[in-house]
Structure formats: C-alpha cells, structure tokens
C-alpha cells in the first residue's frame, strides 16, 4: 500500500505519470522509507460498484404512486411455516433465518410455494372484506390463459405418468408373487415326497410283520392323529422284535443246540394248560355266539300259521 500512498501524495494515478517523476524526488521518497527497493508497480484501486443510496431513495419517493391497496394487491411476507418439516424435525436454522439454498431445487421451490401460500392466506380475508370475489362460479365461462386443448395434453401426460407408475408396481408385485409361489410349490412337492416315503415305509413294515396296524390305509385324517402314536409304538417294538429274534438265534455265540428240548423247568411249567380246552368243554367260544334267530320247525310253523 506504500506505493498507492506515494502516488496519492504526488497526485499521480497512472503508470505514465509515474515515469515522469524525477530522480531527486524518488531518492527523497526512498530516504523517507516510503519506497522499497525492487520494482514498484502502481496498484489500481478495485472498481467500486455504484450504490447511490440517496439517489435511490429520492427516486423512489418521486416515483411512488400512493394507490389504495385494492389497485395494487401486493403483500410482503415471510413464507408460511413448513408444517411437514417441523413434524419431521428437519427444520434447519438456515431456513428459519431466511437463507435459501438456491441449488437445492426442491427446497427452493417449496420456499416459493410457502411464500405464495402465506400471501394468499393473508390476502383472502382482505379481499372478502372488499367484496372482491376469488372463486369463479361454475357457470362463468371465460377465456383462460391456457387453451382447453393444452389442458387436455397436460391431463394426458399426467395420466401416462400415473399409468407408468401403476404398471411398474404391478410388475413388482407379480415378481414377488412368482418368487413366493415358487417357494410354496417347492415346499408342497417336498411334503408330498415325504408323505409318500412315510407311506411306503409303513407298508413295508406291515409286510415284514413289524406292525400289525393298518393305520396307514386310513389316509391323512387318521394319519395325522395316529401317526405320532403309532410312531412311538413302532419305535418301541419294531426293530426290537427283529433284533430280538436275531439275537436269540445268533447272539452270544450262535445257534443254541437243543434250545427246543425240554428242560426241567419247562416240563414243570404248566402255565399253558387250559383244563377246559384239554377236556374239550370250552365249547361256547367256538359256537357262533349263540343262536340268534333260530327258525322254528315245519310243524311249529304250520301251527302258527293256522292260529293266525
């Protein structure tokens, strides 16, 4: 800044004039300490923008027309409070102070929208008082700023957009359904295979004589109820019987010679003796279960008939 100071002292402000300075003057300045050694370049003051505040105010005062509000219909207001943002808690300090971020399109447009809203909310009661209508009655037909044709186009576009959204949603749903359906199908097939396997094993077991119950033929209803019970029973007896037999035959060193010969104990064991069967008198069991309806003889029948 020493250079500028020097210039203003000398009353100079351009390079050409600077060159006209005599050496003596330069030497003087150098001795005073204003000039530093090296190349001194004159600095230009930055251009100041004109801001004639007094002029502006005067102009405004002259220019202003004091019209009633009805003629002007203008309002100055802050934007309406952003209800949604408040609820969400995203209201940041910048917005509340009035600084808009011009880059964030959505925020910016919402700010303008809210400003217009605030104006409308303030102005409508005023207009009502002044008897100026704001609502167009349904039978009032007049030329609109945009033609009907244009509005049809707008409507078409909106419909198209909606349709596109719906289509994409449908497609998504279908995809989800198909995935789910596939899962369900796989599950059902597996279930069927399991059921088949269970049935086959049950049949085989019956064939081999391990279970004597024909529960598996009754199907799903009983199968579900009895399956658990029969399962536990089978688990008790099933392999055990076979195992038992085999153990008996081959276990502990192989076949026992003379296992069917009588021993003292088996000879003296009379638990299997049924006296009545032995004497041939347990006849009732072997009968048909008593005479149910014995038909009377010929003579008796004839007599009965004659009596009637």
């Amino acid at each position, binding site marked *: 800044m020493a250079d500028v100071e020097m210039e203003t002292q000398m009353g100079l402000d351009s390079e050409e004039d600077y060159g006209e300075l005599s050496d003596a003057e330069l030497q003087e300045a150098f001795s005073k300490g204003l000039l530093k050694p090296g190349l001194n370049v004159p600095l230009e003051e930055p251009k100041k*923008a*004109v*801001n*004639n*505040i007094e*002029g*502006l*105010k005067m*102009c*405004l005062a*002259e*220019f*202003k*027309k004091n*019209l*009633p509000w*009805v*003629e*002007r*219909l*203008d*309002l*100055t*207001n*802050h934007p309406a409070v952003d209800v949604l943002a408040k609820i969400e808690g995203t209201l940041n300090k910048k917005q509340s102070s*009035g600084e*808009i971020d*011009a880059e964030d399109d959505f925020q910016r447009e919402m*700010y*303008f*929208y809210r*400003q*217009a*809203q*605030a*104006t*409308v*909310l303030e*102005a*409508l009661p005023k*207009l009502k*008082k*002044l*008897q*100026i*209508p*704001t*609502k*167009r009655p349904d*039978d009032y037909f*007049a*030329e*609109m*700023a*945009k033609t009907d044709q244009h*509005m049809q*186009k*707008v409507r078409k*576009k*909106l419909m198209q957009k909606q349709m596109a959204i719906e289509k994409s949603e449908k497609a998504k749903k279908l995809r989800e359904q198909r995935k789910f359906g596939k899962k369900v199908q796989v599950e059902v097939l597996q279930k069927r295979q399991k059921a088949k396997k269970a049935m086959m094993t049950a049949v085989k077991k019956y064939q081999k004589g391990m279970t004597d119950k024909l529960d598996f033929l009754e199907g799903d209803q009983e199968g579900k109820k009895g399956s658990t019970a029969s399962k536990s029973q089978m688990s008790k007896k099933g392999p055990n019987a076979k195992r038992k037999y085999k153990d008996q035959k081959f276990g502990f060193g192989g076949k026992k010679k003379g296992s069917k010969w009588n021993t003292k104990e088996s000879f003296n064991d009379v638990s299997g003796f049924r006296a009545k069967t032995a004497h041939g008198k347990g006849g009732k069991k072997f009968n048909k279960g008593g005479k149910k309806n014995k038909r009377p003889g010929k003579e008796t029948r004839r007599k009965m008939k004659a009596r009637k």
Partner: protein
Amino acid sequence: MIDHSILLDRLENLVGVTVMALSWFRSYLTDHYQIMNVNSESSVLTKVKCGGKWKNKERVLVFSSRGINFRTRHLMQDLKTMMPHSKADTKMDRKDKLFVVNEVCEIKNCNKCIFFEAKKNMDLYMWVSNVPHGPSAKFLVQNVHTLAELKMTGNCLKGSRPLLSFDPKFDKEPHYALLKELFTQTFSTPQYHPKSQPFVDHVLTFTIADKRIWFRNYQIIEEDASLVEIGPRFVLNLIKIFQGSFGGPTLYENPHFQSPNMCRRLMRMEKAARQKERQMVKEIRLEKRKEVKEVLTEDVTDDVFVTPAEEKPKEVEHEAPRPSKSKKKKKHFQIMAKTGKRQKWR
C-alpha cells in the same frame, strides 16, 4: 357510467344479442354489490348499477429487439396473456439507440415498458422501465420456462387480476425497494380495466435467493391456499438501475453480476489452464528422460556373482524342429485324430 338496464335493453334491440347471450349478460350485470373503502373505513353494501370506473391508467408496452429465439417469443406472449393492460409492438431495429424506445412508448400511449434484448442468440436481457422520466432497470434473464410446458399444470382466467407476493428482503435495501415499487406498478392489473376479469385467482411471487430475483406464478385452487404452478417462470439477475428511462445516471450497479461473456471466458480459461498444465507435465517428463544420467562409481563387489554365459550356437534356427514320435500308447487318440469319429471304449 352506463345504467345496466339501459345497456341490456340496447344490447337486445339495437345490437341484436340472442336470448342465451343476453341472459349471460343479465346474470353478470345484475345483483352486483360494491363497497367503498376510504382510510380504512368501509361503507355500507350498495348495489352496483353501473360498472366501476377504471381510474388507474397503467399501460405496459411489451416488445423486443431483433434476434430473439422461440423461447423469448413465447415468454413475451405469455406476459401479454397475463397482463391485460399490456400492448405489443413490432421488433425494434438494433441500429436504433435505446432512447428510441421512449418515443415508441409515447406513440403507443404507454407509461411502462418491458423490453427484451437478445445478444449473440444466447443471452437475454430485460429492461423494465417507467417511461417518461422514471427509473429503469436492466436484468439478465435466465432459466426461462414458458406457459406451454406440460409440467406446469395450473390454469387461470385470461386477464384476471393477480396478487403480488414479495420477499421481505425487498424492504431491506433501497435498490430492492425501488425494484419492488417498479414491479408492483408494472405487473398489477388495474381494477376495472375493461379487459380484466373481476376474479382474483392467481398470485405472482418475487423472491430473492442467491442474489437473484426468482419469479413464479401460482393458481389459487382452494380457499385454504392450495396452489398449483401456472407459469411462466424465470430468474432475473440485476445489472444496473438507471435514474432515467433507458439512460441517465446510474443509481445502482450490482457488484455480484458477472456478464455472460465473462462467465464463458472464465470457463474457457479454466479449460485452457488445465490443458497447459497437462502439456507442461508431459514436457517435463520428456526432458527428464533425455537428461544425461549420472554415472555411478563402480563397486568392486559387483562382479562377484557373475557367471559366464553358455555359448550360443552360431546358426540361428528360424523354423521349429519336427516333433519326435512319442513311445506312449496313444492308440485311441490316434484313431480319433485320424478318423475324426468317436470309437467305443473297450
């Protein structure tokens, strides 16, 4: 001041208006009430027997210079649609100086003017001025969207009076206050203008953001202030405010304004600087390679592990040697190779 009953009579008999149209006129003109508001005191509700008098004689001339593109033309048309108190004029020759605009306005009997100027088919400048003596302002217009855009779905009556909404920042600075007054007088439709509609169904907003003025136009749908944008929309970047109309001493100059030429120049310079940098880096690399490399002093222990290489044959073979017959049993594959057919495994 015309009596409505007499007017209807004349329409029916002299002009020959049909029954249907006549009933429309009658329904509009009867049962009209009016209220007078003086110094915030309102009078009793009285029936209007004759239409209100149009007092505020504000007329705006909207026109442009040559060399504008389709968007500007549509914007001008939209402004004329929005403002029933506007008039149009032919394009001005660029040879004429700017103060000629004042004369054009006088001829057309307008006291405000919106003049569009297009430069280089790219930049659009807008002048808003109070014609005989008043202030004028020059703006750079950006981000123009016209009424015809399908994204803006609102609609309003042609010639209906707008509400004007200003940002409170307009009251804080004197130059903004002046602009506010200018906009209010230019854009507000006078009451009882013959081409205007009596309903107030749209609102124009002027907001200051990022040191620019943003203009939006919304339609009022419901009483609870639900709005839809109608358009047009644009952004104004203030350049200068003059005391006179299209001339005169400068009252205010926007320090943040950068002319579009300057913007483009800066972008080009940036690109050029980047190119230069890249070139310089390349050159430096080439220089480095060409440099004479330092010869390091020989280390005695370098030769310790060097073993003499085998002697290479003097004759250099150019063709590959023929493959020798291998002794492996390759019967199957040989058969395959010869016949090209698949044979059964044995």
